[in-house]
């Protein structure tokens, strides 16, 4: 027992970057795919292709969540991001009459300043993070993010924020409907259903309107 306790602190030193586990290798490969897809998303000149590469990046992130044993969040990611957000973005591209094919003015004039800021952000954050968490290891155990565990902590400890968030989502959707409604539809007088039943011969115009 004392031998085990003595060997315990030595065990983390045995883990290093040079002997990655299988999970780490898969995480690295999927991470490279995610980064490549994200780079294509922000640099491509074909607007619809950018949305489709965003699907690849977000789907790869769902796989990363699965590798980090957060199963429920991975499936929520697939449902909400891949299912609704990307579809909304595609609808937004179509409704703003985005050109199909290459558009040469996809990037604005401050592209090089943006590149400098992005590189500075990447350098600072990666240096900081690597320096801070060089010796930290995650013990991946099964079941920490399953649907059962998620439901337990969400509805035991986080009920009030959950309900407040549902009210916020409702307000946001009502606001989106109000914003995207055309004004001329609101001003048009609606045909009252009582008039149609009042013996008036059904005209072509009222029939079309109703």
């Amino acid at each position, binding site marked *: 027992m004392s031998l085990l306790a003595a060997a315990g602190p030595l065990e983390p030193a045995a883990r290093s970057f040079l002997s990655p586990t299988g999970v780490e290798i898969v995480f690295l490969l999927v991470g490279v795919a995610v980064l490549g897809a994200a780079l294509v998303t*922000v640099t491509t000149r074909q607007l619809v292709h950018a949305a489709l590469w965003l699907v690849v990046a977000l789907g790869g992130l769902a796989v990363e969540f699965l590798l980090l044993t957060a199963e429920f969040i991975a499936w929520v990611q697939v449902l909400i991001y891949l299912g609704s957000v990307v579809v909304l973005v595609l609808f937004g591209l179509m409704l703003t009459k985005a050109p199909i094919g290459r558009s040469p003015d996809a990037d604005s004039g401050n592209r090089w300043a943006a590149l400098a800021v992005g590189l500075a952000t990447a350098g600072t954050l990666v240096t900081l993070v690597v320096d801070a968490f060089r010796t930290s290891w995650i013990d991946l155990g099964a079941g920490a993010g399953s649907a059962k565990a998620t439901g337990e902590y*969400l509805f035991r400890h986080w009920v009030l924020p959950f309900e407040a968030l549902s009210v916020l989502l409702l307000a946001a959707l009502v606001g989106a409907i109000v914003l995207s409604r055309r004004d001329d539809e609101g001003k048009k007088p609606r045909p009252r259903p009582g008039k149609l039943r009042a013996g008036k011969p059904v005209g072509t115009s009222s029939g079309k309107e109703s």
Partner: protein
Amino acid sequence: MHLAYPAVLAALLFAIGVYGVLARRNTVLVLMSVELMLNAVNLNLVAFDVWLRDALHGGQALTLFTITLAAAEIGLGLAIVLLVFRTRRTADIDRLTALGDPAEDGPAEDDETSDATSAEAVA
């Protein structure tokens, strides 16, 4: 798993999102870059939740809340973009300079070109 892997991936993804927000001209593409940045934050939250393993699972709960907020944000953002496109006939961010400083020369030229393009679009 080494904690540096998800942390570095999230940092790089966030930097790519920053570049996209600053460099893109179409508003919908800017919103897509904002989604990339939000996902980088989500990855950080999940990784640190798995690392810390607190009883409340604050990281995963906050990730779910962030995903919901991102859905609300993209709905409202696209509604605003559609409204702007309907009134100004353009969805390019650097042409929307109606609230810009008129003292400088650059924004005034931009405003003229935007008026010209909107006139062309109407005609």
